[in-house]
C-alpha cells in the first residue's frame, strides 16, 4: 500500500493526537503538523524528545 494513499489515515491520527487534550501548545503543535507532510524523522525525534509526545510512524513504499 502506498504512502500517499494513507493521507486520510494520517489526518485521522493528527486529529486523535490533538483531541487527546494533552497536546503541547503553539510551537510544538505547529511543528508536529508540518511533519505530516514531510519525511523529517530527525525533526520528529527532536520534537518528541523535547515534548514527550510519542512518534506515530507509518512505513511504506514511496511512489
Amino acid at each position, binding site marked *: 500500500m502506498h504512502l500517499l494513499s494513507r493521507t486520510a489515515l494520517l489526518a485521522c491520527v493528527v486529529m486523535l493526537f490533538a483531541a487527546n487534550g494533552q497536546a503541547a501548545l503553539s510551537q510544538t503543535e505547529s511543528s508536529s503538523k508540518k511533519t505530516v507532510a514531510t519525511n523529517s524523522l530527525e525533526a520528529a525525534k527532536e520534537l518528541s524528545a523535547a*515534548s514527550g509526545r510519542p512518534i506515530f510512524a507509518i512505513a511504506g513504499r514511496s511512489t
Partner: protein
Amino acid sequence: MPVKLDVSSPEYRQWSADHKSEGNSIPKLFVVRADGETLYGKSGSLSGDALPSMLASALRHSGKILTPRDATTLTDAIAKFKELKESGDIPRAVKALNRVSKIGLPGKIESYAASASEVNTLANELVATVTDSLTELDKNLDGATGEDGIQIRVTTMMKFLQLQNDYGGLRQVKPKLSVFQKALSKKNNSKLFREAKTVFAAKQAKTKSAKTKAIEKLNALIESTENEAIKSLAVEVLSLLGTAN
C-alpha cells in the same frame, strides 16, 4: 508526532533496527515513546475502532506531554542546577531543581521527555548521595565508643548538619534525614546535638550582624559547655569568624 517513512531509505533501515516490529508487509505502523521505547510496531493498517483504540492505549503509556513552557522550565532548571552544583552551592542547586515541582516531583516526573528524564536522574543522584552519606554516618556512630567516642559523635553530628543544610530542600530525603536526626539526638546526645547545632549555625553566618550574633553564641557556648570536643570546635569557628571580620 506523525511521520512517514520510506522503507527503501537508509533512515528506515536504522529505524527498523532500533524498533522491532511484527510482520513483513507494508504499511507498518509504529508508535515510539519519547525515550525511544517501541510501544507498537506491526504490519498492516488498522480498521474500525482498532486504530483509535491502539492510539489511545499508546498515549496512556506515553507519560505526560510537556507544553513548551514546561520544557523551558525543565531545561532552565537543569542549566541552573549544574551551574550552582559546579560552584559548590548545593542548597541553591537543590532549590533550582525544585523549581520544576509544578510539573512533577524531581525524580518522579511522569514524562519521557529528555529534559524530564534528566531532572529525574539528577534528583535521584542527589537522593543516592544522601542515602550513601547517611549509611556512612551511621557506621561512624556505631564505632563511636571508647575514648574517641564523643569526638566521633561530634564529627558525625557536624557532617550530618552539613548534609541536612545542603540536601534538606529535597523532599524525598526529608524523612530519611528526620529519622537519622532523631537517632542522633536521642537520650544523652540531645545536649551534645544542640551544641553542635549552635556551632554549625555560627559557621553558616554570612552577614556582619549574623556573624556578631554567632560570635556571642559561640562565646556563651565555650563558657557553658562541658564537652571538650565542642569547645575546641567552637574556638575554631570563632577564630574563623574573627578573621572574616
